[in-house]
């Protein structure tokens, strides 16, 4: 069977996954990931992120729709997909009785890489993920961070052109998280690897992803660059704390001309205004301060809140991403058995 | 009557007022928990019920010709082999008490219990008691199966009652050994590794043939030094012989010895564990 394209991209059309019980875990999603792009797939627990990844890496057959990874069809060309991709899934499954080096050699052999090439590759990856000293220790004694780093190395053994990372930094300390981000960025920029990254951390998607897709209850509710998504939902919110409590009414009157007042957004004693989209382009913080000054009011504190991806999620779904729980998320992703 | 105490209502949850209960009540509460725990895992006990019955069914048919060996003490191999069920129930008691206790140690339940007025000894006694109660129930079932398959209990009703007592005592011995090993190792994995040896002790006994009809000398020696042979012979005598004083005395002596070793082992291991904190 032919490859539909020669590039490393991912193309998803109307992908559906329906488990035996419950609503559709993934409900007709479309995604396009360009070669060499880092695509952040955001959503709360149970939104359908891992189910989507499991379908794309050929661990789970889709119920309907089609998808290609590096030009190979996930439903009909599974073996070719698997030769092309690397994946570090949510649960870091390692064999506690094998060492890190043995894991790398094993996965290399499973991928058809043996002999000196496998040895060299194992050394190279152990160095890259900083596990050289622990290379010959059984992984049963590894910390969570070490296991995650080994997991990433295992996903890279055969130099995949597309990398799937399913919540790769969950449970990692900040330092390990930063070094993993650096490595992912390097893979995309230097090696041209396409990265499909699922996460429930907004910061991770914001820092790492070229583009972000937000999934909720199996449906993609927003997609674009983090900056575009944030710009889409509105301008920043300005929060002013007047010096005297009596000035709040006057302060509100001044700020009203810049946008809609947002009483619930600021801290107690402050006045907050979400700038009008059009006005935000023209009015800067200096303009607002000047207007306050002209009104003869004194300012104790000024804060500017830029929109976050959580605001994007709130705007698209009516709830916050980081506060969403499994139950709220609706479709619980069953552990595929 | 002492006020009822619902001590550990669930694994790891201990009623702080439990100390007001006497030791027997503590044991009762914890034993109930042990029995409930064991019975809630059918995958754990079903093979232990099914396998002896399968072995009994298949071997009693496959070895029916063995009854034609001159001097064989029973008319049917089924009668001869019925004892395997009681022995398997006893082996199951080892895993029930041992694994239950090992899990309590691994999951920190025993340590938490030590912080309450309850006695840790009560937990050990309860795990053993729970296992013994289950073995007693299984023994009743096996006797009913024996009666249903027309096994002729030569010792009569009294003998059947004594058989129940001996089967239960045998289960106690194995449960105490299991608890001792659990207290010593504190690991369910280590305990799992011991089971093949217990299994071996059963098969390297007089289970399948009376000692005087065993041809291989090395096996005769093994059966002579294997305490399980005396347990098997004692219980079997009540089924196929009647009242064999010597077989029964030997069995009681072995049971007393093994019980003593088990209890002493448990007490020592518990003391050591408590001393280590």
């Amino acid at each position: 069977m032919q490859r539909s394209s020669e590039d490393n991209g991912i193309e998803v059309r109307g992908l559906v996954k329906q488990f035996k019980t419950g609503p559709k875990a993934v409900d007709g999603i479309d995604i396009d990931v360009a070669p060499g792009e880092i695509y952040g797939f955001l959503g709360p627990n149970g939104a359908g992120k891992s189910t989507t990844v499991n379908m794309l890496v050929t661990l789970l057959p889709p119920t309907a729709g089609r998808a290609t990874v590096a030009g190979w069809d996930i439903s009909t060309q599974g073996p070719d997909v698997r030769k092309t991709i690397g994946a570090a899934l949510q649960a870091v499954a390692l064999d506690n009785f094998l060492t890190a080096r043995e894991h790398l050699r094993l996965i290399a052999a499973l991928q058809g890489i043996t002999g000196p090439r496998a040895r060299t590759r194992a050394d190279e990856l152990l160095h890259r993920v900083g596990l050289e000293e622990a290379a010959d220790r059984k992984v049963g004694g590894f910390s969570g961070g070490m296991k995650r780093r080994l997991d990433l190395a295992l996903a890279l053994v055969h130099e995949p052109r597309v990398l799937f990372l399913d919540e790769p930094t969950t449970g990692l300390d900040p330092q390990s998280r930063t070094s993993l981000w650096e490595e992912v960025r390097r893979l995309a920029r230097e090696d041209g690897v396409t990265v499909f990254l699922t996460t429930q951390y907004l910061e991770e998607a914001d820092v790492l992803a070229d583009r972000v897709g937000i999934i909720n209850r199996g449906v993609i509710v927003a997609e674009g660059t983090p900056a575009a998504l944030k710009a889409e939902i509105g301008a920043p919110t300005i929060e002013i704390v007047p010096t005297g409590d009596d000035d709040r009414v006057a302060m509100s009157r001044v700020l009203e001309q810049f946008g809609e007042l947002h009483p619930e957004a600021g801290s107690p004693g402050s006045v907050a205004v979400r700038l009008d989209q059009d006005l935000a382009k023209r009015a800067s913080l200096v303009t607002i301060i000047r207007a306050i000054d002209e009104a003869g009011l004194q300012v104790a504190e000024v804060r500017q809140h830029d929109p976050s991806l959580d605001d994007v999620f709130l705007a698209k779904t009516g709830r916050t991403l980081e506060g969403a729980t499994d139950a709220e998320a609706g479709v619980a992703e069953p552990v595929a058995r | 009557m002492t006020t009822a105490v619902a001590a550990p209502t669930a694994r790891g949850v201990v009623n702080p007022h439990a100390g007001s209960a006497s030791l027997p009540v503590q044991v009762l509460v914890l034993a109930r928990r042990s029995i409930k725990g064991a019975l809630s895992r059918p995958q754990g006990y079903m093979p232990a019920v099914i396998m002896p019955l399968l072995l009994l069914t298949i071997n009693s048919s496959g070895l029916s010709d063995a009854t034609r060996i001159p001097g064989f003490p029973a008319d049917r191999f089924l009668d001869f082999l019925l004892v395997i069920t009681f022995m398997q129930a006893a082996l199951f008691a080892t895993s029930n008490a041992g694994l239950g206790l090992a899990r309590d140690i691994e999951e920190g339940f025993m340590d938490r219990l030590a912080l309450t007025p309850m006695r840790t000894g009560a937990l050990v006694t309860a795990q053993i008691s729970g296992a013994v109660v289950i073995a007693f129930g299984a023994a009743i079932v096996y006797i009913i199966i024996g009666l249903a398959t027309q096994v002729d209990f030569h010792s009569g009703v009294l003998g059947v009652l004594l058989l129940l007592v001996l089967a239960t005592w045998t289960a106690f011995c194995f449960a105490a050994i299991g608890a001792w090993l659990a207290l010593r190792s504190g690991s369910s994995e280590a305990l799992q590794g011991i089971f093949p040896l217990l299994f071996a002790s059963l098969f390297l006994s007089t289970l399948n043939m009376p000692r005087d009809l065993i041809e291989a000398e090395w096996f005769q020696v093994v059966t002579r030094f294997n305490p399980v042979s005396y347990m098997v012979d004692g219980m079997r005598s009540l089924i196929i012989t009647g009242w064999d004083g010597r077989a029964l005395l030997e069995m009681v002596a072995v049971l007393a010895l093994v019980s003593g070793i088990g209890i002493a082992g448990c007490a020592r291991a518990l003391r050591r564990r408590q001393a280590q904190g």
Partner: protein
Amino acid sequence: MTTMPRFLLAARAVAWRHLYKWITVPANFMPTFIFPLIFFGGFAGALGRVGDVPGFDYDANYTSWIFVFSLLQTCLFGGLATGFTIAGDFQSGFARRLMLAVADRRSILLGYVMSTFARAAVMSAVVTGVAALTGLEVLGSVAELAAMYALALCLSICGTLWAAGVMFRARDPQLGPAMQIPMFIAIFLAPVYVPLDLLEGWLHAVASVNPITYVMQAARDLLAGHPHDTSIAVYAIAGLMGLLLVWALTGVRAAERAGG
């Protein structure tokens, strides 16, 4: 640079891990030795006089009679131990890693069959050694013995295919009895202690249609140097392997559908 096809390389890697863990983890190693030896010792030691019952017609001694049963049981049950490894891998998630890493997932099955075969060969040597020390009588030629071991090792493949088929579907070690009990019944419903002709009633009827009966009979005849009806055993084991291969391959498909 190796020229071995990728499929075989993957199978070899799966087999290597399985054998490596067997050798290096005592908890895996010990039971595979102890259980076959318990059965052999228990039956050969205790039941020697059964060889004297009228109609028991076998040229070699009763130790040899039971040795063949133990050999076949060792090989067959070796496959069951592999079933637990497969289920354990699914439970720990490692099976997903294997399924992601190999292009053709049937190579995982082949790997397990290869390693279990190798393990069964070692175990067969151990059981033979212990049997030799306790009075095993060998009357067959080297070629006949080789044929006996070949039959036994084919049974190890059957055991692995059966266990893999169950555990690729169940993916849970707690369902081990569903895998063990049918195999246990299958081998014990063959003429374990006495020849088929001496079995009576339902056991004779069932044993007569049990393919393992014919493998066991042929293996005993080969050990005693009087092979006859070996072809029936070959057909029986080939048929069994064919059926179980389908069972195992559909099991792999079931695991693929379930998402590992």
